[in-house]
């Protein structure tokens, strides 16, 4: 039985802009850091497979994988692109190692959001071309609609959603990898402009640039590469449906099903008890609550209360988004899942500085692919084999 471990991580960013570096140079820096972290592994010889996660329209190139090998050390090596979030890249690396044909797999994802001049138009370009796109408008109206339904069905209040922003931005101040940490008050969030009723401006994560590279290894290889392996106990991923009209607007079903798959492999039957903290996708503040519930960390409709009562704060009983989440770190596009994994790894290694959660043994990371998808990935990590 071969276990899979994360043996090296490297992160550049996340920053609002990175004008001094091309996306290639950004990737090179993060990769060098990750390889150093993994006992100076040489990608030219010691890495079996490279997995990159990217979408053409977020980069501005068709067939983006053309432009990635050199800076990762993968020229004339075995690399490919998964069109998905970086956490799906982790799931792919997990499967590759489990085939027992490969020992070391590198996963990369980045965001160069500052290079995209028409980001919202590109998000809108992801809508169904026949049924949704002709309606026009800023695509985030979908989030407004979903938040509306979610609050209606669960009784979650606007204050509870706003509290997520306060918590996450505050956590981000302690995170050197975060772009938008700040001390803001509940009132400031509640008074911010309503953009897509009832979604307010400060409840929407702002894009940021950055790159995260991780090195994964099989049990045998991991021994030589680190003293502090973080084991991938289980992964799950799921696509509910691309059709806005038929996806569940109240419950993040894609997360529930992905979590079921991950918990099964990780042998977790009581997530609240057996997991110590969670990094969940908070592109919009209400999404954090929706995702907490879908991860079965509490009953539907209860996540708002947990937040209000400070249970999900950094010093609470079950910290959620100790990194500051995307609201605090910045939205790293397809690297957002990697932002979550990065924090989970740092926490489990005891390297989270002033954000450190004491005695953390099992961490949960979850990602969503954003509007207009109902696709998510979940990973359970632990420092105990």
């Amino acid at each position, binding site marked *: 039985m071969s276990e899979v471990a994360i043996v090296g991580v490297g992160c550049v960013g996340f920053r609002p802009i*990175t*004008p*001094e*570096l*091309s*996306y*290639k*140079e950004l990737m*090179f820096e993060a990769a060098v850091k990750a390889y150093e972290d993994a006992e100076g592994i*040489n*990608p*030219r010889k010691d890495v079996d497979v490279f997995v990159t996660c990217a979408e053409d*329209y977020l*980069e*501005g190139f068709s067939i983006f994988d053309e432009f990635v*090998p*050199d*800076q990762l*050390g993968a*020229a004339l090596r075995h690399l490919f692109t998964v069109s998905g979030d970086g956490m799906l890249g982790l799931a792919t690396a997990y499967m590759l190692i489990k085939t027992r044909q490969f020992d070391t797999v590198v996963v990369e994802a980045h965001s*160069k959001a*500052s*290079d*995209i*001049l*028409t980001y919202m*138009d*590109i998000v809108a*370009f992801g809508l169904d*071309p*026949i049924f949704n*796109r*002709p309606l026009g408008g800023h695509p985030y109206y979908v989030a407004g609609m979903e938040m509306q339904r979610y609050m209606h069905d669960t009784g979650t209040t606007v204050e509870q959603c706003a509290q997520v922003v306060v918590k996450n931005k505050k956590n981000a101040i302690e995170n050197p990898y975060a772009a938008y940490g700040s001390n803001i008050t509940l009132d400031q969030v509640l008074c911010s402009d309503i953009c897509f009723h009832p979604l307010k401006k400060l409840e929407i994560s702002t894009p940021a640039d950055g790159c995260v590279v991780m090195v994964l290894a099989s049990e045998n290889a991991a021994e030589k590469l680190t003293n502090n392996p973080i084991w991938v106990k289980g992964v799950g991923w799921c696509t509910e449906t691309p059709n806005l009209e038929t996806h569940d607007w109240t419950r993040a079903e894609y997360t529930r099903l992905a979590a079921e798959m991950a918990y099964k492999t990780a042998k977790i039957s009581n997530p609240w008890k057996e997991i110590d903290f969670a990094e969940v996708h908070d592109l919009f503040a209400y999404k954090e609550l929706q995702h907490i519930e879908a991860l079965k960390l509490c009953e539907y409709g209860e996540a708002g209360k947990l937040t209000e009562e400070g249970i999900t704060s950094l010093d609470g009983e079950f910290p959620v988004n100790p990194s500051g989440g995307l609201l605090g770190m910045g939205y790293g596009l397809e690297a957002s899942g990697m932002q979550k994994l990065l924090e989970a790894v740092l926490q489990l290694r005891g390297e989270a500085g002033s954000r450190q959660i004491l005695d953390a043994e099992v961490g949960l990371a979850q990602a969503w692919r954003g509007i207009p998808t109902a696709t998510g990935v979940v990973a359970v990590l632990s420092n105990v084999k």
Partner: protein
Amino acid sequence: MSAKIKNYPGEALETKDVKEGKVPTEKFRPKAKFAWSAGIAMSRFLEELKNGKIIATTCSKCGRIMVPPRIYCEKCYTPTDGWTYVRDTGVINTYSVSFLAADASRLKEPIIVAIINLDSASEGMGIIHRIGEVKDWKEVKFGMKVKAVWKPPEERVGAITDIKYFKPIRE
């Protein structure tokens, strides 16, 4: 079961029917605009092109002189550690002659494009550019010596097109 299947799905349409609006269609033009940071290596490359020069980076480990310049040697996977100018002359590695414009209409004058291995860069360090000042495209040969023809300094902006084309060096 290829041999056992009688009907393969798919209903073919005539392109002209689509163009003439006889088929229900939804049209959309995406707004996809990007401004890529050129970064360390390419920023310098573009600045030097404005000066009428071609610059390369060097890797002391493998000894290569690389154009286009890059801050990492992809062979050795180490940062490149030097900058050096290379000559704007070279040799044709391969070429082709295009008779079609981007919209598939026929060109009166064909466009000759080539990969030019630059002298004083490492072996095989080619860049792609057009070949000009050729009366008959059949004159172009593999291994032909060529030289860059630059735009006058006041017209250069810091782009690969600051070189108008490469012309054959006729002895």
